[in-house]
């Protein structure tokens, strides 16, 4: 296959991991997070530094990246998840900006110059192996008591709490899991592009991931997958149609999202009916 297509396919896979993991936090658990790209960045930097400075093998570095993102997810999750809706969104936004500034100013992260000379270890097979593992594990989670708790929190937090679900713990767990997968995606990204800088993981990237989830359908893993594929592939496709359109792809996102919210607010695939089907089988 043409290397250009392979690259698009690989990036699509990385974006799928980001979208399905944000969907866990925002779609299933109902917590609006605007720092998903920050967790991706933490994963990317940790994995890269572990590999470059400590000579840790690629696979281990990837997992270290995911774990450190999860750790940050926990640290930021504990104080902020008491907040609801808009307030949580603002707090996560603030966290994203803080982390970006830290990455811009630390010596070890290379500041605004970023880190270069990263070995290219990620390929399309590795990425889709990870996509498969992520989606498989997410499905297992969503079919468990934990998954039911996430959805109950989204549906009515007070009622969930009154039923004996420890909502604070489950919200933090959703946040930590989401961050873990995002960190994994970050590591894959770094080992694919071989160069990272703080701007790769800024607010706009977080919004892009959120767009994928909303486009595909909040609360639907395969919707998020589809949303990620469309938002990754479409601008590339449009680039081949006309360079002008490719230049304005953020405008294009905007229009797409506005149009979706007007005509199909539930997203392309709508909400997952997994719970319902299981219910009937029981």
């Amino acid at each position: 296959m043409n290397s250009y297509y392979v690259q698009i396919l690989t990036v699509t896979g990385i974006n799928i991991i980001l979208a399905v993991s944000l969907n866990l936090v925002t779609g299933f658990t109902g917590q609006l997070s605007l720092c998903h790209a920050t967790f991706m960045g933490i994963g990317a930097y940790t994995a890269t530094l572990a590999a470059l400075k400590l000579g840790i093998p690629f696979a281990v570095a990837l997992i270290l990246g995911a774990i450190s993102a999860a750790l940050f997810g926990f640290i930021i999750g504990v104080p902020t998840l008491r907040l609801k809706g808009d307030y949580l969104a603002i707090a996560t936004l603030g966290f994203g900006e803080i982390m970006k500034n830290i990455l811009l100013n630390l010596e070890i992260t290379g500041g605004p110059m970023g880190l270069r000379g990263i070995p290219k270890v990620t390929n399309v097979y590795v990425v889709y192996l990870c996509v498969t593992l992520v989606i498989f594990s997410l499905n297992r989670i969503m079919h468990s008591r934990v998954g039911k708790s996430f959805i109950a929190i989204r549906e009515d937090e007070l009622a969930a709490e009154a039923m004996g679900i420890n909502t604070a713990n489950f919200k933090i767990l959703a946040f930590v899991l989401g961050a873990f997968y995002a960190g994994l995606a970050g590591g894959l990204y770094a080992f694919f592009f071989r160069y990272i800088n703080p701007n790769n993981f800024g607010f706009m990237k977080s919004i892009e991931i959120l767009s994928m989830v909303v486009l595909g359908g909040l609360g639907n893993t395969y919707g998020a997958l589809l949303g990620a594929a469309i938002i990754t592939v479409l601008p590339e496709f449009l680039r081949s149609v006309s360079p002008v359109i490719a230049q304005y792809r953020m405008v294009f996102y905007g229009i797409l999202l506005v149009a979706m919210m007007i005509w199909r607010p539930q997203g392309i695939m709508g909400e997952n009916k997994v719970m319902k089907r299981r219910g009937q089988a029981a």
Partner: protein
Amino acid sequence: MLRLENVTAHYGTIQALKGVSINVNEGEIVTVIGANGAGKTTLLKTICGLVSATSGKVYFYDMDITNLPTSDIVAAGIVMVPEGRRIFPRMTVLENLQLGGYLNRNKSETKANMERVFELFPILKDRLHQIAGTLSGGEQQMLAIGRALMSRPKLLLLDEPSMGLAPKIVLSIFDIIRQINREGTTILLVEQNAHMALSTAHKAYVLETGRILMEDTAEKLLHNEQVRKAYLGEA
């Protein structure tokens, strides 16, 4: 069974409960009546750990449950049916009930509990796979009560079960409340509909701006002059 000693609770700087002491004996239906803003909902939320008490003690049997996490209180046998029903609207009736039995991992017990709920509310069995948000108000209230019963509570806290329901539905909900009580569940009922509450309960408290004003058998309070004027709309 349940004993509150001088419980106070705050919302920010506002004191919603100013030293409330009540006593619920096993097997009773106890009601707390009061106007909007009297602190009725806060009282129930404080008992089940959704609002923390700033001072005072809550005892369940002889166990101090003051400010325990709600999950522990539910596990101990107290569960609340929240005001305004608060079912999980986009889940099916079955999923709502399953979440009610969340803390019980024993499948056969969960199944037996569900059968018991269906005996009380046969309509829920017919609507098992319907999305809960599409049920009528009365059916939603039945689901909310059924969901709470899934954890087999010893003490059921009911927050305004009559709210927003047609008078005829209110009557049948209260019939079911009596039946649940006859089958062995103690009930603490908070109501603005003082007439219904007093004619259902054994014992009653009148709560006004965070303080217990009166305490007596429901029968006596129903005929008390002051109560009749203030809460039963009689001159």
